[in-house]
């Protein structure tokens, strides 16, 4: 396999609703920002991979087809990836393999999503219709008709984890993490909730949306787009030299999709109290990157925090804290300000934003930014998705001057 590096990234501001732009306009904005960052032209891009999660959000089947020409990719290859919440991460995995295989030299991964065009005319609000739209993602024979939703599905995993580890995920710990993410979002000009103030106390006393998830401890719905430019070794070095920025190499990549039906053994079915997809994906990525002890060797993590308690379990699965003792993230000051690890410096999907198909590009954009600005050595980007946290993707990034 050939070496692959990231040489540019760009995102739009994350908004709860983009009245001023369609997903066409958002896509153009993100691609323009990404190519400006790389100081290169779209003429030098060989192929594109689109990350768009849900056709219903875009009110379109084949939603990527009208994007291809307007982002300057006419007559070049373009492929859409859709993998639930992990759509963006899987799209980047595809972009990576396009280059590692030797097929192309420069590949753009573009993630974009609408959400709040969906509107519930009964309550005259968007949220119920957004939840209903995501609801079509569940198994349509046995689960959708039971009222499956994304949040109750992740709650199911977290509740099962709490069955096995009743002492972990203490309310004050999740609340403190919410406060930290809120503070970190202040450092992200594109964050949706940049101006919001959420203290641990406010998070603690916010109402339950679905037990054990509280309103201020879960991700928002956003609209936006994000683009990341990947390149082969020679190309990456040339582009980076020209842009005056270091290459951020993708040194590890792993992915895993679990079974969707619950059973006692994770090897054949979904063991509900764990997120094995995150475990397998991250450990595969570590193996590829030669990472032995993630807490010692990784300085920044941008992980897909659909829900803060899930963030904690995912951090356990990825080996930063033991499973069953993820409260150590706060109690041992691992991710508190000045701690060993920078976790979701963008504010995460909770405070930064969550435009599903491109959320992982947003995370990648942030991890790369931190690696470059803070001169860190190694970062990790994570995506999760589908029912019961079935899908997991992890990508190790390394900066070199």
């Amino acid at each position, binding site marked *: 396999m050939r070496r692959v590096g990231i040489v540019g990234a760009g995102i739009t501001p994350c908004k709860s609703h983009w*009245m001023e732009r369609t997903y066409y306009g958002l896509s153009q904005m993100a691609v323009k920002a990404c190519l400006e960052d790389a100081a290169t032209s779209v003429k030098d891009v060989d192929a594109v991979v689109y990350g768009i999660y849900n056709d219903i959000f875009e009110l379109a089947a084949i939603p990527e087809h009208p994007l291809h020409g307007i982002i300057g990719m006419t007559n070049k290859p373009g492929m859409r990836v859709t993998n639930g919440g992990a759509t963006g991460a899987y799209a980047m995995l595809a972009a990576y393999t396009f280059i590692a295989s030797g097929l192309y030299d420069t590949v753009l991964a573009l993630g974009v999503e609408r959400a709040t065009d969906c509107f519930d005319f009964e309550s005259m609000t968007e949220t119920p219709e957004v939840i209903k739209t995501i609801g079509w993602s569940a*198994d349509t024979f046995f689960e959708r008709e039971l009222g499956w939703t994304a949040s109750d599905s992740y709650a199911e995993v977290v509740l099962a984890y709490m*069955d096995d580890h009743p002492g972990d995920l203490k309310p004050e710990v999740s609340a403190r993490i919410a406060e930290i993410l809120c503070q970190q979002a202040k450092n992200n000009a594109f964050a949706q909730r940049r101006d919001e103030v959420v203290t641990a106390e406010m998070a603690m006393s916010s109402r339950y949306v679905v037990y054990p998830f509280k309103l201020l401890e879960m991700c928002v719905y956003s609209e936006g787009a994000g683009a990341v430019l990947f390149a082969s070794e020679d190309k990456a070095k040339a582009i980076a030299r020209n842009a005056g920025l270091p290459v951020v190499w993708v040194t590890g990549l792993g992915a895993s999709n679990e079974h969707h039906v619950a059973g006692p053994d994770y090897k054949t079915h979904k063991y509900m109290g764990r997120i094995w997809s995150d475990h397998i994906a991250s450990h595969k990525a570590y193996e590829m990157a030669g990472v032995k002890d993630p807490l010692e060797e990784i300085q920044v993590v941008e992980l897909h925090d659909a829900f803060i308690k899930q963030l904690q379990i995912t951090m356990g699965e990825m080996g930063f804290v033991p499973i069953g003792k993820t409260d150590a993230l706060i109690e041992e000051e691992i991710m508190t300000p000045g701690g060993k690890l920078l976790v979701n410096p963008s504010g995460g999907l909770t405070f930064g934003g969550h435009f599903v198909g491109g959320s992982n590009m947003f995370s990648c954009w942030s991890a790369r930014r931190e690696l470059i600005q803070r001169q860190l050595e190694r970062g990790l980007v994570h995506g999760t998705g589908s029912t019961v946290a079935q899908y997991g993707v992890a990508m190790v990034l390394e900066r070199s001057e």
Partner: protein
Amino acid sequence: MAETKRDVPRVIPEHFNPPVASEVVEVDGHPYLQTNEGMFTFYKRTKGEFSAYFLGLRDEAKIYGIKCPQCGTVRVPPFALMCPDCDFAQMESVEMPDRGVMNSTPPITYFAHSLFQSWVPFGRGRVVLDGADTALPIHVYTTQGVLTPFIFEKGTPVKVVFRDERQGKPTDIFAVPMAELAPEQQAKSPLLESDLDFSEPPEPVLGEATDEDRAAFARAVEMLKELSAGVDASPRARHNLAGWRRLIEVKTAAGGLVLKIDDGSLEVAEGRRTEPADFVMLCAEPQLLVDWMTFKEALTNAIITGRLWISINREFTTIFKLDRLPRSVHRDMQARG
């Protein structure tokens, strides 16, 4: 020919269908055009290889699973024909018992989108039926008042109950805690919804009232009377209660009262009811009522945390309406200046 009678249930209820309309919305001085739209497709969708399972639920009130003759794995529901762990060996249908244990603590939906509002609160759990290796997705309910997150947990023994009217859907069945059933109900197969009594659940015990409770109760009564007058003067609040009629007996450690919702109005009376109430609201601490009316706590949230109990599960919808009143009254008062 398509059925056109108005009273036939529709695949998409007619009231979900918004009018054809468009409007201009201004952002930062620029006009943007938006239109009402829908993305809809109708299906005659086969249940294919799952037909025997759904017909078993509907016509026989039986649950079928599928068993691999090679590894012996029993999968319920029978979500695959062939065993992926044994090079796609053909599996065989097996009849399952109507009892088992919870695979894990189920999530409970209190705030559903439009398609599932009539079910709330409902638990979406997974039951490992006796002899099964996989867990069956199923609604879970309690016969003892409102559903809370603390009734079911991993390993809770449950019984599958069949609805009297069944359509060949996952909602034809639900599970209740075995411990809530009488021995003859536990033994009956199939146990039907009409075999259960949801109407008079045992009430949680109220403790002794403290002086604070008594003071809080007096304050709550006073505030409820203000709220009642506020509702009369608030179009928003009257709209919240429009078309709704309920007599609610409220019980606290420091005393009780009666709330009467009558198509846009809220009446408050101290003491006990004289006519039969539709349901009971029970909170040991009357302070909860004060907290609700001072925006410190939502009654719906108090149900989720166990601070408030109601005797009839589906009356959560009434609690949801009550929850809106203080804010509606407040907003209309502000609008009036």
